[in-house]
């Protein structure tokens, strides 16, 4: 094959969509056996560039070379034939199939008309052994953890003997432990000669595993750097175009009276017979950010749903501003001053087929500001949306008339945050508000949360990110298996201690927090 130093080169790629240049003369060169990070804010054009490499889009101009030879990639099958594989951010797995069936799907080994999985099983087990990818080949996808699903996706690529592995924001869905494991796996793969493209906006991860990093900003190519010669600060500056403050600036909390008082909340689980939330009692006061920390799936979701009215409690009371809202409807809770930034922005946060402006009034279209005698005041909605877009810097192709589905994840989240904060709530329930966002957006959202606190509002933050928990909150409550197992002060505690509580290795006895 060619004697090029690079296994894949994307040269001067430009991709135009109506109204937007998603990639503008971008060049990306991947060396054999390296881990190459692709860094950029949301909407910087990373996904577009990878979709071009994977054959999902055709570039408007520019060429792709493999081993120095120009290639045309017209569809994912072409990409496959060139040994390019991709782990998508949202996995492409058949939920009701086993791990093994998913891995061989599309290239099923057959004897005549019948499947013969024996060889496939051996190959999968061998690969799983070689790269430390622990999976149970016979487990059904819907039964296994997100981490194992991801390992299945990786095995899918390896099973197809892919040389170039693309990871699209692989850590967005993982717990800290799973992230560590993934980092190890990636290093293993690179050592075995696989070339990895790692799309992310998490600087820590780039610093931890990558060899080189290419930075995009607003569709433009900013540069490629050696990780050994750079710092986190420099990377973030290249990505955002200005210096980013990693420490959240905040004054000491000025704690006021109680806004939210939950007593003995118990919520049944939909997944299993046990209760998802067990006898939880807590208080949130004005002027403080209380963070519920914990590993995903320890009852946080059910807790928030019960608090906001999406699910019913089996027992307990919720006092909000002194009033019992245990039985209040979702609308009543929202009206009384509770805002909710939901965990899943596509499921709950947005009506994706609505325009941005329609989504901006999702929680208040019924207010007299926006309707008269049942008719929506289109002009008022437009004006309001334009103000929020301006104030919260929500970027989109066609302003208020943009269909929410076509917006980037970060801007969708910004739109939700704009909507929820602009309601000026007494209590802001923010569930993983920065999930999947870049540092610029994270910095902004954190400053908004702190601003709410400083206005004397209460903020209840639910987060899986340790950095966020430690930096933003004034008080940490750790949730483990549906119970609050500890209350910590972020100023005096350490990440290690927090981790022990989160893992259930340590708990304050006495129960009441």
């Amino acid at each position, binding site marked *: 094959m060619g004697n090029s130093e690079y296994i894949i*080169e994307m*040269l*001067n*790629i*430009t991709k*135009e969509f*109506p*109204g937007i240049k998603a990639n503008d003369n971008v*060049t990306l*060169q991947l060396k054999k056996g390296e881990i190459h990070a692709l860094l950029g804010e949301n909407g910087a054009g990373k996904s577009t560039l990878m979709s071009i490499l994977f054959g999902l889009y055709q*570039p*408007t*101009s*520019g*060429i792709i070379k493999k081993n120095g030879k120009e290639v045309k990639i017209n569809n994912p099958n072409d990409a496959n034939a060139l040994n390019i594989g991709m782990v998508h951010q949202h996995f492409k797995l058949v939920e009701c199939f086993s791990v093994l069936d998913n891995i061989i799907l599309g290239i099923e080994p057959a004897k005549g008309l019948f499947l013969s999985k024996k060889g496939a099983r051996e190959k999968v087990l061998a690969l799983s052994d070689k790269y430390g990818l622990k999976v149970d080949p016979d487990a059904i996808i819907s039964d296994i953890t997100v981490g194992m699903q991801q390992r299945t996706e990786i095995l899918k690529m390896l099973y197809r003997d892919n040389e170039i592995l693309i990871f699209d924001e692989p850590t967005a869905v993982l717990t800290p432990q799973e992230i560590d494991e993934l980092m190890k796996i990636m290093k293993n793969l690179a050592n075995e000669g696989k070339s990895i493209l790692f799309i992310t906006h998490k600087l820590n991860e780039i610093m931890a595993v990558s060899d080189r990093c290419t930075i995009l900003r607003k569709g433009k190519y900013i540069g490629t750097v050696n990780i050994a010669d750079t710092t986190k600060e420099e990377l973030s500056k290249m990505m955002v175009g200005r210096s980013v403050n990693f420490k959240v600036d905040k004054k000491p909390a000025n704690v006021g009276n109680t806004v939210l008082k939950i007593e003995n909340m118990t919520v049944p689980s939909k997944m299993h017979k046990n209760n998802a939330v067990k006898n939880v009692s807590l208080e949130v006061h004005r002027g403080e950010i209380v963070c519920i920390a914990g590993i995903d799936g320890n009852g946080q979701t059910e807790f928030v749903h019960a608090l*906001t009215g*999406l699910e019913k409690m089996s027992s307990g009371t919720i006092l909000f501003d002194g009033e019992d809202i245990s039985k209040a*409807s*979702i*609308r*009543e809770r*929202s009206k009384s001053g509770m805002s*909710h930034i*939901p965990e899943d922005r596509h*499921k*709950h*946060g*947005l*009506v*994706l*087929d*609505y325009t941005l402006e*329609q989504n901006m009034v*999702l*929680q208040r*279209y*019924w207010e007299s500001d926006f*309707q008269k005698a*049942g*008719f*929506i005041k*289109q002009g008022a909605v437009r004006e309001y949306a334009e103000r929020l877009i301006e104030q919260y810097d929500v970027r989109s192709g*066609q*302003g208020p*008339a943009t269909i929410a589905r076509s917006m980037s994840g970060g801007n969708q989240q910004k739109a939700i945050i704009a909507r929820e904060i602009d309601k000026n709530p007494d209590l802001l329930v923010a569930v993983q508000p920065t999930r999947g966002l870049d540092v610029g957006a994270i910095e902004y959202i954190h400053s908004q949360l702190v601003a709410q606190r400083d206005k004397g509002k209460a903020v209840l933050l639910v987060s899986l990110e340790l950095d966020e928990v430690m930096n933003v909150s004034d008080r940490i409550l750790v949730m483990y298996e549906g119970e609050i197992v500890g209350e910590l002060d972020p100023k005096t505690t350490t990440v290690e201690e927090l981790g022990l509580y989160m893992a259930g290795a340590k708990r304050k006895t006495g129960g009441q927090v």
Partner: protein
Amino acid sequence: MKNKKSKLNLSSGVMSVVASFICIIIGLLVGLVILYCINSENALDGFSRIIKGGFYLMPKGIGTVLSQAAPLIMTGLSVAFAFKTGLFNIGAAGQYTLGALGALYFALVLHMPWYVCLLAAMVFGAVWGAIPGIFKAYFNVNEVITAIMFNWIGLYAVNEIIYRGAIGDMYDLKTTKTYSLRNAAPQSVIPDFGMNSIFNTKSTTIAIFIAVAIAVLIYIVINKTTFGYELKACGHNKDAARYAGINEKRNIVLSMTIAGALAGIGAGLYYLSGVAEWNPQVSTALPAMGFNGIPVALLALSNPIGVIFAALFVSHITVGGGYLPTKYFQPEIADVIIAVIIYLCAFVMLFKGVVANALSGRKKKDVPNSGKGADE
């Protein structure tokens, strides 16, 4: 900014219309081929009769098209309205049947004026629509299954109520149908304001104007009101609607109730115009008017204003099919053409994409497609 936006919206609307027209043209061509296969000599003559539709026999044909289109607009609206809330109202036929009962009972038995009869048709249809809605919202039973069941329950119940072993109040032994409204209950016939004499027909009434007015009303409800906003939110994303405090169960029931009411009005417009009488012994198949609402809604991409035109078109070629020389062709050829068009309706989205690509392709040409010369 504003300018740009309106341009984009316009072209999207134009694309939908173009796509629907492509379906229609292909459907007609297939019809022509079929005509050729059956009888090549008379194929062109037959084809031109179908295309001319109501215009073939002026002015009577126009009047017939209008009187057929009115109920079709209503059943089309019924299906389109439910679609907006993410529900598939396959029960329009059953709701239509109940609407017919309501209209005929209030006309022939209670001798009420036509507008009261029309309201009765609406209420009867609404109740029949509400039932699948309630099952869907509170027991999570798929509305398609319930609606199909209630189509048949409705049909046989209505037949039995009208016939009652040949002693039913509304049943005319001589014609084996319900009594003719024009003779038995003239006060219940929808007024025609001279349209029948213009078109030289018997049953062209203001029904068409009522249907168009309701279509406009539905358009306004869906696009301009908070109620429409809620309904569409439920249709697009049930979870987000719930999160926004919208009572999605209530909205499902309301949506199906309104869909039922619309189909019921459709039956009212049909029978109260005296287009035909109900025949309880022959009517063992569900009324086609109810099912044809589905293709009308599809062809119109669920747009209430589009439903008006789609319904007019469908009745236009159905009437045209009726003018085929029966010596050579069956009038059902028109149904075949409609069926092909409807089948193609499923591809409307695809055509829309093709049209969009063709349009954007033109713009792309001036972009240089050379990117040679790496910069390193």
